[in-house]
């Protein structure tokens, strides 16, 4: 498996460019500290030769103190440059995280169906945090180590050409071996990360379903699955670990070779050219100095290997294109919109069809009641209207404009949806209602809540709109949450309103409370009401009945009502059988 260096560099340049000044400063710090590191063995040579009497007149104590000062400053510079590199790394990866989150959040729903939130946490946080190490390791670590390596080589060539050649051979060999081994571990790390992603996805899923688990005595089942996952995971971890260790072993082997070469050459030069013992020490010391960069390059390469796995996955994510794309930016007519389905066929996967050749139209300002058995395609129809998906074939027109020609953001400004599942964030009431839009004034929110009969509820909150809702929402009834979803809907001004089983979880008394509000919402707007219950479609002008993805009946409600042979009236009969009995 080959990891293209190009991908690294692209990432680096893209996310470092905004902070190039800090990056340049960082490079300066690194160069200075490297120079000082190279100076240390030179000082030691002077010291040893002087101590052995080969260099008369040198002040030993002054040399020792000089060594100390240089060493202390070097350490300080290294620490500071590491701090700067962390800052640069986190700033860069935060940018990347934002880009990726922005990208993923707008991918179409078929992507999100196959990726659990737990998995997204692994990608957006686990993987990218690995990349933050990658940035600091790449910038400070590998770069500075490579430069140090080169610096040492230059110093060795200055001493003696033979030493330079011999140890260059060793350095080049190390680099070649390490580069070769670099890619070996990547597939194992990828497998390990994937497995851990699956494991934590599994955990997250079961942690949100504890109520169902407990009350149905499924604890044993969950633990059994937990153990099975552990057993699958362990061999993958072991392989990844072994793959990683290969590089360490290789470094030790090559480094021993380097030492052996240095010893042999020094022995030879000592015998033939009479170099001083200080110079022998200098050569061995420089070879020794290569230990840290090479050993660090080893761990940094490991990080890089992990980052490679992350980069592979992340660039895979970035390359995914939403199946639903912005259109050319067609403008929709002002006011309520007509809705038209022209022979629309759609399936979530290639081999299934949820909607089959659906054709109907709804006049502007009218309300359509959508009926059908669960799974008949009602919700899917609503999703197509919002362009959460696009039809496989056929077209969907709003106010005469093909929905695919509109920009998503623009379209969803014109259409709102209230679903049966209300998702709450662990955030303030305000943010939960406005979806983190700071521009909605508090008065408007308060007015909407008042309108929905939630005024008292709002006043009972200890921190008002700033009160933080808990994500689990256990102290929050599903009905109340649903009322909040209505409030969300009222805060935008759409041209088309879709109510998807919106009132299903409201008790009748509360439902009456918001009937008035719904009436207001549907006023001068086109409406689509999806319901299982007949009374919910009382306000519909037209009725459409779906069965297994096809229209089995469509027409004005009053007409269908009068026709005793219609499905609608027979449905009414079944639904109200008790009343008739």
């Amino acid at each position, binding site marked *: 498996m080959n990891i293209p260096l190009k991908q690294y560099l692209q990432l680096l340049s893209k996310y470092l460019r905004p902070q190039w000044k800090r990056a340049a400063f960082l490079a300066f710090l690194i160069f200075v500290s490297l120079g000082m590191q190279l100076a240390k063995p030179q000082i030691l040579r002077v010291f040893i030769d002087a101590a052995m009497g080969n260099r008369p007149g040198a002040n030993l104590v002054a040399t020792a103190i000089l060594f100390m000062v240089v060493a202390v400053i070097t350490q300080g510079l290294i620490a500071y440059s590491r701090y700067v590199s962390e800052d640069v790394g986190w700033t860069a990866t935060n940018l990347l995280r934002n880009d990726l989150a922005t990208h993923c959040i707008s991918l179409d729903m078929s992507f999100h169906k196959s990726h659990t939130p737990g998995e997204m946490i692994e990608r957006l946080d686990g993987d990218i945090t690995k990349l933050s190490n990658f940035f600091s390791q790449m910038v400070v670590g590998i770069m500075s180590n490579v430069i140090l390596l080169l610096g040492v080589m230059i110093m060795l060539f200055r001493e003696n050409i033979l030493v330079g050649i011999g140890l260059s051979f060793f350095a080049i060999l190390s680099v070649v071996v390490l580069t070769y081994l670099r890619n070996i571990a990547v597939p194992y790390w990828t497998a390990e990360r994937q497995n851990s992603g699956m494991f934590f996805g599994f955990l*997250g899923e079961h942690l949100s*379903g504890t109520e169902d688990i407990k009350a149905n005595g499924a604890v044993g089942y969950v633990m059994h699955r937990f153990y099975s996952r552990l057993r699958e995971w362990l061999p993958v971890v072991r392989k990844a670990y072994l793959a990683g260790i290969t590089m360490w072993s290789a470094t030790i082997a090559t480094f021993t070779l380097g030492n052996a070469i240095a010893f042999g050459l020094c022995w030879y030069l000592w015998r033939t050219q009479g170099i001083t013992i200080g110079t022998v020490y200098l050569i061995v010391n420089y070879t020794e100095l290569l230990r840290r960069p090479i050993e660090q390059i080893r761990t940094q390469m490991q990080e890089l290997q992990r980052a490679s796995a992350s980069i592979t996955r992340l660039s895979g994510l970035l390359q995914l294109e939403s199946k639903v794309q912005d259109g050319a930016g067609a403008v929709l007519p002002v006011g309520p919109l007509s809705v038209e389905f022209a022979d629309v066929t759609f399936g979530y996967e290639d081999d299934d069809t949820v909607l089959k050749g659906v054709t109907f139209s709804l006049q502007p300002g009218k309300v359509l009641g959508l009926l059908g058995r669960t799974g008949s395609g009602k919700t899917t129809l609503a999703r197509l209207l*919002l362009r959460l998906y696009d039809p496989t074939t056929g077209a969907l027109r709003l106010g005469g404009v093909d929905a695919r020609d509109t920009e998503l953001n623009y379209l969803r400004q014109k259409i709102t949806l209230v679903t049966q599942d209300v998702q709450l964030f662990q955030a303030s009431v305000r943010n939960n209602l406005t979806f983190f839009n700071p521009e909605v004034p508090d008065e408007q929110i308060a007015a909407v809540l008042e309108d929905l009969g939630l005024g008292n509820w709002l006043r009972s909150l200890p921190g008002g709109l700033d009160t933080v809702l808990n994500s689990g929402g256990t102290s929050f009834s599903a009905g109340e949450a649903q009322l909040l979803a209505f409030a969300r809907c009222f805060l935008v001004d759409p041209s088309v309103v879709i109510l998807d089983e919106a009132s299903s979880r*409201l008790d009748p008394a509360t439902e009456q409370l918001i009937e008035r509000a719904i009436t207001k919402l549907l006023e001068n707007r086109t409406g689509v009401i999806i319901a299982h*219950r007949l009374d919910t479609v009382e306000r519909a002008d037209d009725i459409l009945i779906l069965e297994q993805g096809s229209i089995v009946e469509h027409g004005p409600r009053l007409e269908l009502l009068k026709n005793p042979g219609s499905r609608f009236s027979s449905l009414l009969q079944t639904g109200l059988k008790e009343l008739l009995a």
Partner: protein
Amino acid sequence: MRTAKLIWRMIKYRPWLYIMNALVWTSIHTIPVLTGLITRAFFNSLTGEAAGLNIWTIIAMLVGAALARISCIVLGALTDSRHRFTMSALLRNNMLQGILRRPGAQSIPCSPGEAVSYFREDAEAAEDIISWTVDMLGTIAFCIVAVFVMVGISPRITLFVFLPLVVVVIIFTQATHKIEAYRQAARDASTQVTGFIGEVFGSVQAVQVARAEKNTIKHLRQLNDQRRKLILKDRAFNLLLDSFSSNTVWVGTGFILILASQAMQQGAFSVGDFALFVYYLDWVTGASEFFGYFLARFKQMTVAFDRMLEILPGSTHQDLVEHTPLHLDGVLPDVEPTANDPEGLRELVVNKLSFHYPGSEKGISDISLRIRQGEFVVVTGRIGAGKTTLLRAILGLVQKDSGELYWNDQPVTDPGSFLIPPRAAFTSQIPMLFSDTVKGNILLGQTEERIDVQSAVHTAVLEPDLQQLEQGLDTMVGSRGVKLSGGQVQRVAAARMFARNADLMIFDDLSSALDVETERLMWERVFSKQSATCLVVSHRRAALRRADHIIVLKDGAVIDEGKLDELLPRCEEMRLLWHGDHADSDQTKEALRQLQSAGSNNN
């Protein structure tokens, strides 16, 4: 030293594996002592202090030491990966079991995303620290052997090599208590980021529909930035300490130079000796840095243990490190089959049950009810009346404040573990399906011989849906059952409940996502079972009509109870709920009249 005790307890879980691991890693860490001695021999043979050693002998020894070390490393990778995995798995196992012991609706005090981060990061931190104790042992062994060698050469200089080390350790131990606060803040900020990502992607459809992509990302960016700042603070402190420790060692090196200069000039200290001292010092520097790092991380481990305990309210540290089986090897035992309830339900009595959500006035007060075998009891009321809460309190999914339960006259002390199959089964209002097949979700680990899947599927009116699905019962259900519609999820959950074959079935508003016909069919099939005893939350007429007993809740209290025809005349709330269920519009009445007359004409 609580952290040390916990770690000790974890180490004792697999003592032999640990000892093995420690031995191997001690060898890996101490072999460099030999390399130092070989280096000394090289210099001494040049300057004539130790004549007789051939250059090839020296090189051969060098290579031998390296090969020995590499072999140990390979062995160490095997023992360490196994031990590490075992340690984090033990914590994760105990955490999960602890959470599953809690009342189901109050299992974790945070979002699942946050809880996952505890499972991931804090267990990993524990894994690291325990693995590093092995390295600590090895490093200490290296230091002892090295000191032994160095004292043999020059006791005076040896003292100055180790003096700075001691200083560093003292400074570290004093300074690290400050790390915890920074660390905690950084971790909290991190948890906020992961929690938010989880929430956003858990409700991505709502985000897209509300065009909130930009604003949620903006919020994420703020959280990210906050985390960056806190992490940098944490890092800055660590780097400062780090650099301080290295400097201490360098200053120490300088002193050795000064001391050695006198001895070298006098010929009492060879260049080989000097090379050995500097070589060991390099390793001792690494060792002291590691020692300091270990201490810092060890201190931080307290935070990690506390955090892991945080999601297990009511548990102790002891529970966290309990020696529980992990089944990593051997045969994985099957899920224990649910025993049949020999006695069966005669009567469930709830007496003055109260529960209030902590820090809130919401809840239920003094609720009493009685369900006899074969009865159909409906709880009704408007939203926020406490219907779901009542079911949760009975089932022990929340920890009741007061009140008693009696099952066949026997007091039920822990309903959470008593009112489960085969005695009771439950379908929640928004059921969760797990990433498994439809069948797997229904079986919940029980064998097919014990569970009548077909009959459960039939009762839940799931057959038409299964026919639509290409793989029928073997269809994989997505992470949250997303590939099924809301009603389908609910019916799979209902089938799951029916399959439990429990004495008492409890439905929380089962019908909220079902259409009229499906719901009617399901009720019919449930009641065709002679033994069915049901407690149901509903405000549907279909259910209310069938009820043997209706309990009307308002603001968490029972305001009336009885049969429908008793309640309708006397209970205002009941009337409101009853009439609310059908918008009795004139149009519909008119249509019905027409239908009726059409029907009678045909006759």
